[in-house]
């Protein structure tokens, strides 16, 4: 064999080995890829909210036959993600704190987070990590009921609240500027009890102040979404057997809004950043179907397909089983 022939033979062998490694290595990597199980629980439900107050582009027009404008009010679930990845039990958002508070808000179907977790076969003490999409009172309550969980909150979220609190103009500084509400002012939504619960986690050494992106478990990644709902909003990427999911809290308030590219639940929100957060989900998951919204009225129905495997649980609140890891048992009754 000529020298050139030997070189070609060597090169061909190299290619063959590389191809085998690619095939089998890839299969091994896929088999070892982390996969989580995911459920969704309805912490409570805001009842009969005018659609236009939630999504301006869906405002009710009396007599309209346009499907975007013929629904006067919607009921908005407050959704919590329950994510089991190996020995980690992670919550994304924690809903509201207490029943007394709910009576003032037109909210129903609340049940304590610990009781809701029991329905799924978990205990509150099993929760190892809590990622709050933002620190508003309807997403960061009940932290003290999760004694072993480490809280993950964005540095920018805390910085923006502190900035607002120190602002000299009283309406900008106010948590509530008027009895009727705080009209999306900078500190609006950060009520004392919720912030004390955040402080409680910090005081116990069970809080991580995140500055940007952070992987908190294999394949489970926090992505900042600054100003997509609040200054320090954060998304959570989760690998599952049905592909990657992205939880968005109120950056993803509405599934229909992500699908139709409309803003939703504008609070301390930069609408451009909310659209970029939608785009982030499209890029990570390959579309909009696996984007998990916090307040989508269609949650737990066929019209929001990823949440359709649902049932009614405590106090009329609903739950959904979204994805199971290999070997994970169904928790659906």
């Amino acid at each position, binding site marked *: 064999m000529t020298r050139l022939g030997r070189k070609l033979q060597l090169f061909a062998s190299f290619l063959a080995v590389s191809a085998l490694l690619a095939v089998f290595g890839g299969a091994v990597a896929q088999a070892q890829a982390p996969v989580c199980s995911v459920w969704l629980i309805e912490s409570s439900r*805001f*009842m*009969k*909210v*005018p*659609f*236009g*107050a939630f999504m301006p582009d869906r405002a009710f027009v009396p007599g309209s036959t346009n499907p975007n404008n013929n*629904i*006067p*009010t*919607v*009921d*908005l679930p407050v959704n919590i993600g329950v994510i089991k990845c190996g020995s980690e039990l992670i919550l994304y958002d924690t809903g509201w704190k*207490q029943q*007394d508070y709910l*009576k*003032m*808000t*037109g*909210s*129903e*179907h609340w049940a304590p987070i610990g009781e809701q977790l029991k329905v799924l076969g978990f205990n509150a003490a099993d929760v190892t990590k809590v990622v709050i999409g933002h620190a*508003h*009172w*309807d997403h960061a309550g009940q932290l003290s009921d999760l004694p072993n969980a480490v809280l993950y909150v964005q540095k920018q979220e*805390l910085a923006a*609240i*502190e900035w607002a*609190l*120190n602002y000299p103009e*009283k309406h900008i*500084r*106010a*948590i*509530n500027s*008027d*009895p*009727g*509400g705080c*009209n*999306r002012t900078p*500190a*609006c*939504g950060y*009520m*004392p*009890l919720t*912030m*004390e619960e*955040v*402080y*409680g986690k*910090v*005081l116990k050494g069970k809080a991580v*102040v995140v500055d940007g992106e952070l992987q908190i478990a294999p394949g489970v990644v926090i992505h900042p979404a600054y100003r997509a709902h609040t200054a320090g909003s954060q998304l959570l990427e989760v690998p599952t057997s049905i592909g990657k999911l992205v939880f968005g809290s109120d950056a993803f308030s509405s599934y229909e809004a992500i699908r139709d590219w409309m803003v939703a*639940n504008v*609070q301390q929100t930069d609408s451009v950043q909310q659209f970029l957060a939608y785009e982030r989900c499209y890029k990570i998951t390959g579309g909009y179907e696996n984007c998990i919204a916090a*307040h989508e009225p269609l949650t737990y129905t066929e019209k929001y397909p990823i949440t359709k495997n649902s049932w009614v649980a405590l106090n*009329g609140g609903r739950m959904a089983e979204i994805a199971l890891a290999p070997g994970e048992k169904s928790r659906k009754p």
Partner: protein
Amino acid sequence: MVLAGLVVLGWRHELRSGASPSAPPIVSQRSEPRALSAEEERYAAALWEIHREVTPSAVAMSFAGIIHETGSHDKDQLERKISPVATFFLDAERRVRALGVPPALSQVHNQYVEAMVLYREASNDMLAYAKDGERQHLIDAHDMSITASQAILRAGEVLWPGQYKPH
């Protein structure tokens, strides 16, 4: 105001027209707030002027703790942040006690006064920590603040129903 108005209009419309197309059948569990008399409304309005500063002051107290624990651990800085809060709650307690209270709201009033006492004592405990470094002061302060915050929520349920909106 626009959002608050929309919410109220929406609820009223809904009472007339029935459930929205997307809403599943539900059983209402919400207790409607009791309408206040004119005298009670005056009390609620007077207390609101204090309450609107109580809430950011309470949150500022939590934040001083958060910044201390996650940042510099500088006790002098903590003292500088808490001192005005302690002064505020001392004054707030005095102002709340001075309000004329309609008889039907005496329980709510007492609840609110107790909250001011707890916030004041909590801020004093944080100042004590800044002086002696004993962490139990911070833990006690936190427990008192939690109780106080629950008390002002309960008072608010009677006086200012709907003060927080969906977020």
